[in-house]
Structure formats: C-alpha cells, structure tokens
C-alpha cells in the first residue's frame, strides 16, 4: 500500500489533504511553543520592564541583557547549584528507582497495590508536598530531626533548610523523593520487556543475580535508562516550585538555580529582559538534551530491533 503510494506522485488534492491532517498539530505547535519561544528570545534582546506592559515600548538593547547576566558571580553560582542539583537528583532518583523496579519485578503479595502507592508523590501537587517537607525538615519542630535525635544519630538538630550546605542537600532529597515514581514506573516497564527466557538461559549457564543483572538486564535496559536520564535532566534543570516552596532559594542564595534566578529577575524585579536572557540559557540547555533524547530514543528502537 505504502510502496504503491510512494511510486507515483500524489495528486494535488491528496497532498492538500495530507497538509490538512497536519495542520491542527502544526497550528498548535506554532501557537503554543513557537510563538512564546520566539517572543522570549526577542524579549531577551530588549530592555523590558514593568512599564513595557502598559506602553508597549521595549527599546532594543542588543546583547546587553546577556552581558549583564552571564559574567556575574551570581550566574556562576547558579550554574554550579543547578549542576549539583541536577546530578544529585538524577543519581538518587535513578538508583533508587532502579532498585525499586527490580524489587517489584519479583512476584509477591500486594505487589500491585504497593506499586500504585509508590506513584503517590507523583500525584500530589508539588506545593503540597513541598510545604509538608518544609515542616518535616524544620530544625526545632520537624519530624526528621526529632527522629534522628531519638535514634541518637545526631546530638543537636541538623539545620536542613537553614544551613548553607545542608539546604541544597535537602532540596535534592525532596526532589529525589518526587522523582522516584517516574523512574520506577519507566524502568519497571523497561524490565518487563526483557524476555524471561534470557534469564533462564543465564541461570543454566550458572550466572548468579549479579552476573545476570550485569550481562542480561543492564544491556537490555540501557536504552530505556538513557531515555529516563535525559528526560530526568530536562525535568530537573527547570525545577522551580519545589525550591521556591521548600527554601525560597535561600539561605543566602544557597539553593538558587538558573530557574529560580530567572523567575526572581522577571517576576520579582520585573526585569523581564534579563529574566528572559537567563531563561534562554535554560531553553538552550534543554534543547541540547532533547536532541540527545531523540537520538537515544532512535538508538533504543534500533537496538531492540537487533534483539528480536
């Protein structure tokens, strides 16, 4: 059918029809992704302020917004924090997510119930879980410090949210908690696709659990793992709500990432030009990762083709 179609040149109405089918999707993409994206890029080259909203006047500023934002210490700190936050979150989410996915692969009672309960952090609004974590991590009255004290792990309260080094760890921990369900769900799905007979064959060859993970599970899971990680990076780089709710970027800017900085510039100082410039750095980063994701996705398909 398809081969026949590609041999002859489609008639005009047919081509029009094809485009008409594409049109809704194209219109949607242009309206809701293309337009804001272009607008954001344009904004970053203009001197945008609160008055621009009323007067509509935003004088062209060239690269000035970028020149102000990029070389500053705050930008460097924000990049470092963003990297630490992203890497920390991803490692935690992925390792725990994979461990849970492997665990749920075994057959045991209540497996299904537990697996669906695990999705709970994903279903809760982030502001709700963020606020709850903020209470739990309070040094004086939070349940976390009380538990640690009662277990004699620490003698005095850990300043989870108010110590400059602890705060970043705390937001990472909260973000790991938020991200585990996603990682578990996708990796569990990937594990289901590994043919059971390969494990049987490995067992016959005398492979223990470690060896069968290394030589059977991991190679077959790797494409899925790649997708999970790339999506994870894209989701994590832009995290704003969790940080804003849990620490507000503090203490002393210890948890300011590129996303929170951009938000503060635009919506607290109404310097939309500089906010947009910083936002574009994030978009660029996500775009690169999205390309990596697409390639990884293609590779995943290819390698699966090889297995079958």
């Amino acid at each position, binding site marked *: 059918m398809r081969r026949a179609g590609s041999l002859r040149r489609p008639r005009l109405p047919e081509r029009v029809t094809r485009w008409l089918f594409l049109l*809704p999707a194209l219109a949607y993409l242009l309206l809701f992704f293309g337009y804001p994206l272009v607008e954001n890029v344009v904004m970053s080259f203009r001197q945008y302020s*609160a008055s621009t909203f*009323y007067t509509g006047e935003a004088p062209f500023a060239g690269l000035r917004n970028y020149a102000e934002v990029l070389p500053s210490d705050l930008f460097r700190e924000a990049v470092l924090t963003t990297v630490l936050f992203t890497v920390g979150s991803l490692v935690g989410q992925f390792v725990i997510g994979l461990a849970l996915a492997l665990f749920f692969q075994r057959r045991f009672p209540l497996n299904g119930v537990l697996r669906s309960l695990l999705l709970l952090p994903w279903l809760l609004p982030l502001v709700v879980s963020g606020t709850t974590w903020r209470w739990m991590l309070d040094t*004086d009255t939070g349940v976390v410090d009380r538990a640690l004290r009662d277990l004699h792990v620490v003698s005095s309260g850990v300043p989870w949210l108010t110590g400059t080094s602890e705060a970043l760890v705390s937001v990472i921990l909260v973000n790991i908690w938020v991200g585990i369900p996603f990682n578990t769900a996708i990796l569990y799905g990937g594990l289901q696709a590994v043919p059971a007979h390969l494990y049987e064959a490995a067992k016959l060859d005398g492979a223990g659990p470690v060896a069968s993970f290394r030589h059977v599970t991991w190679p077959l899971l790797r494409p899925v793992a790649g997708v999970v990680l790339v999506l994870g990076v894209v989701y994590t780089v832009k995290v704003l709500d969790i940080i804003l709710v849990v620490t507000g970027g*503090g*203490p*002393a*800017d210890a948890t300011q990432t590129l996303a929170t900085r951009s938000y503060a510039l635009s919506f607290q100082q*109404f310097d939309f030009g500089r906010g947009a410039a910083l936002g574009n750095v994030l978009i660029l980063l996500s775009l690169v990762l999205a390309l990596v994701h697409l390639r990884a996705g293609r590779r995943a398909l290819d390698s699966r083709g090889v297995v079958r």
Partner: protein
Amino acid sequence: MRSAAISARRRFTALAGTVALALTAAGCGGGTGSASADGKVTSITALDYYTDTAEHAQWGARLTACGKRAGVTVEHRSVPGASLVPQVLRQASSRTLPDLLMLDNPDLQQIAQTGALTPLDAYGVDAGGYAEGIRSAGTYRGKVYGLAPTVSTVALFYNKDMLAEAGVAVPRTWAELKKAAAELTRPGRYGMAVDANATFEGTWQFLPFLWSNGGDETRLDAPQAAQALQLWVDLVRSGSMSQSVLNWTQADVHDQFVAGRTAMMVNGPWRISELDKAATLHWGVAPLPVREAGQTVVTPLGGEVWTVPQNSSKARQKKAAQVLACLNDSRSMLALARQYHTVPSRTAVASRYAREVPSMAAFVRSVERARARTGRLGVKWPRAATGIYTAVQAALTGEQTPREALRHAQRIATGS
C-alpha cells in the same frame, strides 16, 4: 479521497470559526463593567488581594456601600497577594485594567511609572491631612496616585506570662532585648522570633532595626546598618533566636508565638484578631527596641492604597474615584481600622481613634513616624530590598560578616 479532502476542509472551516468565536468571546470578556444605553455608568469593577473569605466579604460589603453612594454597583474580585502585580501587568498590556485597583503601597510607584494609573487630583479627591509616610508612598513624581484608608506597621509582641515567669521587663533597648531573649529561652522555646527569609517580607522586618539606628537604604554599607544586622546575628548565635528564622514567613513567626515556642516576636497588628482567638495566650505589644535609649523608633509603613487605573471611559473613572473617596472618608477609615486593628491614615482621624481604642495607641504613635519603603528610592526600591534580604541571609548563615554582607547589599542596590 476527494470526499475526505472536502470533509477535512469543511472541518477546518468549522474549527477556524470556533477559534474566531473563542477569540471574540475572550475579547469581549475583558471589560466587564457595563454602561446602560444612555451612556450612564451603572457598574464598575474593583480588584484587590483580600482573598480570605471573611475579609473578601467585608470588603465586598464596603465597596457595595460606597458604590451605592456613587450610584453604581461594584463587581469585586480578589486574587492572591503574590499574583496581584503580575495580574495587573497583564491587564495593563491588554488594556483590561479594573476601574478601581488596590495595590500594596511599595508597588504603587512601579505601577504608576508604567503610566497605567491616573493622578487623583484630576477627580478632585481630597488628599489632605494624610500622615507623611503614606502620602509619600502614594505619590509618584509629585502627584498623588493612591490613597490608603488605613495603614499599619510592625511592633514587638510579647507573651506576658512568659515574661512574668522569667522576671523580665519588656525590653526597650537592644541590650535589654538580647538579655531578655536569653533569659526567656528554655528547652523547646526561643526568646525571640523574626522573619528573616529571602523575600521582601524579610526585608520589611529588618527595616525598623536599620532605620531606628539611623541606617538608610541608600547607604547600606554604613556602620549603623552593620550594627543592626549584628543584633540579629547575635540573637541567632546566642541561641535566643532559632536559625529557622531564615526560612520563616511572618505567618510562621505568628504560629511559633501562638504555640508558645517563642516568647517575643516582631509582627503587625493584622495578627491581633488571630491572637485574640487563642484563649490561653496573654500577649502584649510594645514599640520595637532601639539600640540606645533616646533613639526614636522608625518603622516601615504597611498598608494598601486604592488607585484609579487608565481606562477608555472617563465616566467610569469618575465613578471609581467617587468610590475611592468614599473608602477614604473618616467614617470608612475608623470602621476599617476597628475591623482590622490598623490605623486611620489621616492624622486627625488617627488621634481620635487612639483616644477611642487605647490598646492601639502604640501603633498610632509609631505610624506617625513610619516611613514608606519607596520614600527614598522610589522605583529603585526592589533592588535595595533584594540587597537587604540577601545581606541578612548571608550574615545569619555565617557566610559573611554583617559588614561584608551589607557592602555586597549596597552593590546590589546600586546595580553595580
């Protein structure tokens, strides 16, 4: 194939029609206030951030009453505090601003600068007799754009029982404050609490200490500012104040106080109705301590101003200004002040109020000298405010000494 193409085309036409319809509807939805056929204004719109159910209803009733006097009905809408300014900016760009708009007073100059507001003298609104602080907050480039019926500020709230039990007098100087806070601290309880979080609210709580000591937002690197910040640092270092102040909002500070986990706190009179609900809590309120006896307390001025935004209909603006004038007459001022434990912003009305409600006398006195946050820096205030809370955070975490932190703050404030 052909029929499919036609049907697809037909479907597209239908879709385009729907989109056009939706756009028209959205366009119409913008200006909701209506005028009757003969051009007489029958209703105006009002926007504020009083989202609390009781407060929203009370303001709704007040607006309705004032609207009746002006011969219009008022469509009253409230959005959460944090989204009010972004909402106003959006409405400014789509020319769908409400007829009557409430703003937090430090935001007024920023919005007035955009050109979205109209000066009130054009409508003959009486702007005389206001306390200096709130007059300057509502003024942009010599013209009054906003008037607040009532104003407020912060003071020291203390737990009478805890002070009595520890044998501590209400502190009046910083030295007394440090001593009192240390003596009031027990296991599971701190002597003092403030809001030192990384927002403008944290800045707002630090200002009375900065200003009363002769410090200024234009010279944050001056020694007076460092002394004020040192006080907060000392309180946290000595354990009289929790390090969690770095992450507390004013509401959190209030909760700590009500739960008996702090003996004193910095907060405002808008908390009084909540404090009164806690039956076992015996609380008092006093002016904030100063560094040395003899210094005057200078506190930041809080309160919301009402404005009349730019609008295509002069008649609607006139009606809105009438309602605004009604909100700001002495009767409304007194009623609102009693309702929310705030202070009438006309000095004559305020002194009458102080005689009638002696418990508010401390606030009435401090409001007279209260300073508007935008008084010195105008539209540049947000930068200084950011500098201040950044410095407070850096000093309280021990990242920087108060001196270094404030020197950095001065750089943020001047944008260098």
